[in-house]
């Protein structure tokens, strides 16, 4: 999913690649999502959770993406900070609102699911709280970038913050193991294989891939937009000074 940075580091090559890659990812995302939703909604109801289990196909991939996007942002920030690469910075900046959206989706769907399952919209356990903190990190990143005017400085400050925020990711993932949470433990990616029945696992994984491809498409489009915006601003600056 993370495009080979060395190949795409060249903006021209990136623009050429993303011009056709973005629509392709979008098409894949739609196809996978249709398949996943079909299989998911024809799957039998869970014997414990009843029909509410269907929220899982929306919630779990969104929760995965909330972390995955942050990893992408972290890697891009690292590249931007160490190699001062403008495209990597554009990628980090473009990822933040997407990550925030996935996190918000995970929070909202989890909360909708929590009401029937736990009898409360929200509990302050470690999993839920650490996801909220993740959301706050996305907000803080965007707020920081928005309030620094010098692009280069905003890029580096944002990158430092994104790297600092990486420490929260292990907490999100292992919170269910480290603390005694209401949220259920890992059942898909765990030692000893998944405990989920294949009727649920297949559509879940399909939805996971669909989210991934959808993110890929949106990310590429947003990076392109960012590149265009920066080019336009540079041109305006040159024009103003000339």
């Amino acid at each position: 999913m993370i495009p080979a940075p060395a190949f795409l580091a060249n903006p021209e090559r990136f623009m050429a690649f993303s011009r056709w890659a973005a629509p392709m990812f979008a098409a894949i995302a739609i196809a996978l999502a249709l398949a996943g939703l079909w299989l998911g909604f024809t799957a039998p109801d869970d014997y414990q959770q009843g029909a509410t289990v269907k929220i899982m196909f929306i919630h779990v991939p969104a929760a995965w993406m909330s972390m995955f996007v942050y990893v992408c942002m972290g890697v891009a920030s690292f590249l931007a900070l160490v190699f001062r690469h403008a495209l990597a910075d554009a990628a980090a900046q473009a990822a933040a609102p997407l990550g925030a959206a996935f996190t918000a989706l995970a929070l909202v769907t989890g909360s909708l699911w929590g009401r029937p399952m736990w009898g409360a919209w929200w509990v302050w356990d470690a999993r839920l709280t650490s996801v909220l903190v993740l959301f706050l990190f996305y907000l803080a990143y965007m707020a920081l970038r928005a309030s620094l005017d010098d692009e280069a400085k905003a890029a580096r400050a944002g990158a430092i913050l994104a790297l600092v925020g990486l420490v929260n990711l292990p907490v999100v993932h292992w919170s269910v193991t480290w603390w005694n949470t209401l949220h259920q433990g890992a059942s898909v990616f765990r030692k000893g294989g998944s405990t989920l029945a294949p009727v649920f696992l297949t559509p879940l994984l399909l939805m996971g891939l669909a989210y991934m491809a959808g993110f890929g498409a949106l990310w590429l489009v947003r990076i392109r937009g960012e590149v265009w915006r920066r080019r336009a601003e540079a041109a305006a600056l040159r024009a103003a000074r000339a």
Partner: protein
Amino acid sequence: MITRLEIEGLALARGGRRLFSRLSLTLSAGEACALTGRNGAGKTSLLRAVAGLIAPEAGRIGFGDLDAAEARASGLHLLGHLDGLKSGRTAREELDFWTRWNGGTAEAATEAARRLEITPLLDLEIRRLSAGQRRRLALARLLSAPRALWLLDEPLSPLDSDWRARFGEIMAEHLAGGGLILAAIHDPLPIPARAVDIRADGAAA
């Protein structure tokens, strides 16, 4: 509009120490006065007293037959070391704000920016301006809202020699239009001006 500045027997003290006393000075429309004096003599304090920011220990500061509070409120510009420009805002935001605050028009602001050649810099944040550019922005405020009495504290210092001369022309125009200038300086002013030297005993020369 202020047409006269009358300072009579003025004494100023800062932090319990008398800076000078018996300073008298009259300035009429079209005249400039260059205040000189050693560092710490009280030039800045005198300008602030004329602007009404600090109260004199003795003596009187009058503006012809205008009411002092009114004359100060809309008749004078003060330009000091601290120029009141916010480092995080853009030059345009600051110029527009101060122009309107001082009752000037948008056209006057544009014209002032043109005159001081800061038009291409208007979209930069203040903190990115060089010292001379920043001073020119502060000077643009003088032109963007016409007021008769200019109180200038070392107005020339960060300007390059070309701009010192050009600001001299601007001051000369202001005087020709009936303005008054009271400037504290260490370098000579590029316009003819009455020289007043501030000394602790008695005063002016």
